[in-house]
């Protein structure tokens, strides 16, 4: 029986359904006036055979570059609230959004989620955490809670609109506080919770112009950057003094 099912799966070509994707932009420029951005993700399911059996699901994820963070907990000590314990999270995306055409559990089975790392908790790697404290999961949950409140983690269930099992579209909001880097964008097509096709592309998030120049100067030439900041400050101080003494005369 088992080999028969396996044969059935083999009979369906791997490319029975494919994703054709469009993005409103594949670059996000952080300019001086940057105040968040909205990415419009749209696409179509390409197929050469009739629509297969099974419920179609579409998942769109956007992940920012992973960063190592420390999650700290406050406790009351001597009457005031101070940071006491901390857990190092080896890798958590600086930004992560999952948009699905139905609830996540509905479009993706638990096993497929483990394999493809789609849900928000599956994106967080805390290898050393369980050794450091007893309740490591509390720290991971706190990280998710804080990032969700800040709009940096988003679970957008049912926000992918699918028309005629072919066209899909969704809008994903990028917050104003955005880290630079390559944002991996993944699209998964699922049938009854199993991934049948996926597509990966990147959205490049970069500081541009003045932002880019100041940021790289501050990292690559910190002494020069410091001197420049001081020069601006001294010039502004002198300018104000000179301007107002002229006004008084």
């Amino acid at each position, binding site marked *: 029986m088992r080999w028969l099912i396996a044969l059935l799966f083999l009979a369906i070509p791997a490319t029975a359904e494919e994703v054709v994707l469009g993005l409103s932009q594949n670059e996000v420029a952080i300019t001086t*006036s940057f105040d968040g951005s909205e990415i419009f993700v749209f696409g179509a399911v390409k197929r050469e055979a009739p629509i297969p059996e099974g419920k179609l699901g579409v998942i769109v994820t956007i992940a920012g570059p992973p960063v190592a*963070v*420390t999650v700290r907990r*406050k406790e009351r000590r001597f009457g005031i609230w101070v940071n006491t314990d*901390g857990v190092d999270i080896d890798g958590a995306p600086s930004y992560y959004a999952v948009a699905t055409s139905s609830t996540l559990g509905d479009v993706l089975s638990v096993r497929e989620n483990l394999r493809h790392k789609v849900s928000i908790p599956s994106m967080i790697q805390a290898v050393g955490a369980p050794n450091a404290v007893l309740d490591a999961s509390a720290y991971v949950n706190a990280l998710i809670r804080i990032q969700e409140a800040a709009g940096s983690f988003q679970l957008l269930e049912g926000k992918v609109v699918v028309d005629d099992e072919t066209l899909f579209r969704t809008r994903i909001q990028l917050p104003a506080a955005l880290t630079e880097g390559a944002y991996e964008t993944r699209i998964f097509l699922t049938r009854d919770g199993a991934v049948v096709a996926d597509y990966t592309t990147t959205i490049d998030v970069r*500081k541009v112009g003045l932002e880019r120049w100041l940021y790289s100067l501050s990292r690559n030439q910190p002494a020069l*950057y410091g001197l420049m900041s001081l020069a601006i400050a001294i010039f502004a101080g002198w300018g104000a*003094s000179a301007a107002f003494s002229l006004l008084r005369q």
Partner: protein
Amino acid sequence: MQIYLPIAEVSVNAYLLLGLGGMVGILSGMFGVGGGFLMTPLLFFIGIPPAVAVATEANQIVASSFSGVLAHFRRKTVDLRMGVVLLIGGLVGAALGVVLFNYLKALGQVDLLVKLCYVVFLGVIGGLMFIESLNAIRKTAKGGALPTRKKHNWIHKLPFKMRFRVSGLYISVIPPLLVGLCVGILAAIMGVGGGFIMVPAMIYLLGMPTKVVVGTSLFQIIFVTAFTTMLHATTNYTVDVVLAVLLLVGGVIGAQIGTRIGVKMKAEQLRILLAIMVLLVCGKLAFDLLVMPSELFSIAAEGGH
């Protein structure tokens, strides 16, 4: 108008920053203080990361102090020799302060340290100023004479004496060095010039004449905050020049308006207003430390580097 700060990596309203700069500028003009001790906590409240707020505020103080010291040089009310002695202490203190700051940042305690420093110093200074100006108002109401200061105390018995002509003093260099040291540490940790600590110390501890105190302290503050800015810029990369410029523009204009308002008010009234404001900021910070936060967890870059 939202503006994205390249180093702080947050987006804030530019008018809000200009307004804050202007407001603190008016106050600093009115009361003759640098305003750093008000600006840094205000930057915390609007969501600038504390490390960036402290480093950037040091840079902004360079500008406002430079603007102020020029006026004092014209009036010849700067004791350069005393300024240099305070400065030597200040530079050592600033270096110690940045080392302490970075060490605690790695431990995740830097926010606590900065906030505790603020609560303690704002509380003490605000409280003392409030009592002192209340007494002064009562005395002037009664028509009594202002108390005269003692000319000689234990300070004058210390070795390594030096003559400070502009101040008309012949005292040991140890107390000014120590005053400079303390102010330097505070400047690095709190992102303040430290004028609000140094000015009383110069008058009451060193016995300097009031007219040279402000100019001399501004002279010292420029170099100590410039040094602090450089240390923060090269070790922590936390000086945000865009933030500094926005605060500067507002601050410089505000200071000139404030000076004009200040001229029209009585010194005791000004001092009591300043004291109330200092105590309010202190109270808000203390309240945040004492009351259970709604979110017990916080996220920081790993190891703080």
